[in-house]
């Protein structure tokens, strides 16, 4: 099944005597200065029904992978724990957790009930000796257990960092196989951590650069199924897709949604020249946004929908520009050495991520929207195509190795430049696009 039904996902206060939400010392301010990960303890969630043992263990391990995977948290191995929880209600012995230098403790329980998984958890601040925030209970169908675990981890991440999480999210991308000169490509979807891989198309034709709709239920991408690059819109729930209208004799590609989901901005090539256009998703006349003999492509809306950042080689090489969403005179924002492409506006609106090509290397970088404070986060033979995590803290991108046996994989990196890692579970892949947080 392609659709994950998250039925009756309820966030319910558990505690009869709720602890005031407090801003205690248990807090990570995510800045470039954070280097030492916060040590946390996560005893295996207690199985509260006889049939919940495996589910409890699986959920615990996904929560740990989420938290530790950020690089901001470090799990204290369960073998070092002194206190054991026979029940979710067992009182916390703070001294036992202080003794092993835990700063945060997560205690949880899992029950199976009528085909549903019910998870409850509490987060404790060990040094101040109190619970952080209220306990919560979440329920979903058994098939959605990973989402439950991600949601628990999102709450914990959010309480400790003060920022929203990104674990309950998905990535749409291009799954790749076969030799370099006849690469087979198909659209695929997975959880942000690579679990739950599903294919959305077969590999009968080239596809690339998919993007989610703002609500995450549709994907827009470029396909060669007619023999020529065309834009197609796919509904994830039923995997039905339809081509957007085109002008005969042109190529259309690089589609992205506006933040309100009403427009698609894209590139149209005619007579060798590529410009930016936008068209209403539900039909209507295209609007031309640029009119130059240069290549204009890789557009990305600002989160407020007012502006579009894109790349153009009107200066002679690929550079980044920002224009009003209605078109009009663009302002160049990239001025460093090399070529700049694939700009993507951050969800917070303050940064633009990009691909930079310079001196035979490729980099993923970020800059402010006025072009200042450029920072390169990666360097390799070929890194390209950044996409933002829903909270704007992590960037995923494509890394391709060199040579005849080149492999292509998805990688992620913090915007601090730390915590570079491969998204291993999905195999060879390219062109990731991160969804919003799931509802």
């Amino acid at each position, binding site marked *: 099944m392609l659709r994950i039904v998250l039925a009756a996902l309820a966030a319910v206060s558990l505690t009869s005597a709720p602890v005031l939400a407090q801003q205690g010392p248990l807090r990570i301010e995510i800045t470039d200065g954070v280097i030492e990960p916060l040590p946390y303890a996560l005893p295996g969630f207690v199985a509260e029904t006889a049939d919940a043992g495996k589910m409890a263990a699986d959920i615990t391990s996904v929560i740990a992978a989420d938290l530790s995977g950020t690089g901001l948290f470090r799990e204290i191995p369960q073998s070092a724990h002194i206190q054991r929880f026979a029940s979710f209600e067992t009182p916390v012995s703070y001294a036992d957790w202080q003794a092993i230098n835990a700063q945060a403790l997560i205690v949880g329980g899992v029950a199976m009930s009528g085909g549903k998984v019910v998870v409850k958890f509490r987060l404790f601040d060990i040094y101040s000796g109190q619970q952080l925030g209220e306990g919560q209970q979440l329920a979903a169908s058994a098939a959605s257990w990973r989402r439950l675990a991600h949601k628990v981890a999102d709450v914990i991440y959010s309480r400790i960092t003060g920022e929203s999480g990104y674990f309950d999210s998905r990535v749409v991308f291009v799954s790749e196989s076969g030799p370099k000169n006849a690469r087979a490509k198909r659209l695929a979807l997975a959880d942000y951590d690579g679990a739950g891989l599903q294919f959305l198309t077969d590999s009968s*034709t*080239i596809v690339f650069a998919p993007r989610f709709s703002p609500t995450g239920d549709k994907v827009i991408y470029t396909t060669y199924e007619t023999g020529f690059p065309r834009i197609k819109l796919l509904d994830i729930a039923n995997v039905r897709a339809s081509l957007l209208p085109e002008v005969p004799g042109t190529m259309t590609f690089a589609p992205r949604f506006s933040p309100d989901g009403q427009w698609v901005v894209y590139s149209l090539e005619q007579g060798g020249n590529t410009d930016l256009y936008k068209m209403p998703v539900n039909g209507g006349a295209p609007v031309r946004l640029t009119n130059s003999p240069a290549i204009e492509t890789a557009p990305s809306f600002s989160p407020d929908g007012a502006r579009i950042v894109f790349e153009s080689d009107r200066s002679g090489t690929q550079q980044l520009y920002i224009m009003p969403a209605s078109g009009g005179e663009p302002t160049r924002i990239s001025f460093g050495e090399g070529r700049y492409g694939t700009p993507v506006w951050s969800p917070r609106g303050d940064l633009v991520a990009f691909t930079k090509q310079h001196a035979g290397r490729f980099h993923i970088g970020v800059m402010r929207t006025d072009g200042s404070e450029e920072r390169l986060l990666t360097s390799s033979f070929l890194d390209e195509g950044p996409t933002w995590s829903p909270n704007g803290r992590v960037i995923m991108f494509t890394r391709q190795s060199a040579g005849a046996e080149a492999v292509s994989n998805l990688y992620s990196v913090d915007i601090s430049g730390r915590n570079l890692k491969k998204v291993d579970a999905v195999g060879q892949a390219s062109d990731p696009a991160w969804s919003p947080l799931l509802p």
Partner: protein
Amino acid sequence: MNFAPKAVALCALLALAACNNPDKYGAGNGVVDPGGTYGDGGISQGSINDPNSPAYFNATIGDKVHFLVDQSTLTDEARTILSGQAQWLVGHPQYAAIIEGHADEQGTREYNLALGARRANSVQEYLISQGVAGSRLRTVSYGKERPLAVCSTESCFSQNRRAVTVISLGAGS
């Protein structure tokens, strides 16, 4: 597992030139190729010794021209080859052509698609200037999706920065 509806039997629906689905390589993966054949536009190639054969066009005249890094300007060598292509096409009006533009891997995907389109268009314009009717020509870009040579050095990159004129049977034939 569900898949998006596959595009098969497109030939009946599409305009003539598109009938020869230029994504011949995509068809090499054991799946349906609406064009029916790989890379020959669905036509008999004939002998390279027969000046009227597509094989002669491909091998003796040369179906490919190459470009400098990030350029779509035709070199003198390219113009010589294209003049030969144009002469052949003028003399063989039963054929049409799809001009494929390609880029090397040293560029971002969507930019390279646009760059390949520029290259294909340069070839198309030159062929038209040499007397080939524009109605017989169509362009498509593959960007960096279909390299010919697979190493990651200039010796391969220079082969991949190319435009290929793919002959097919044209209207009324």
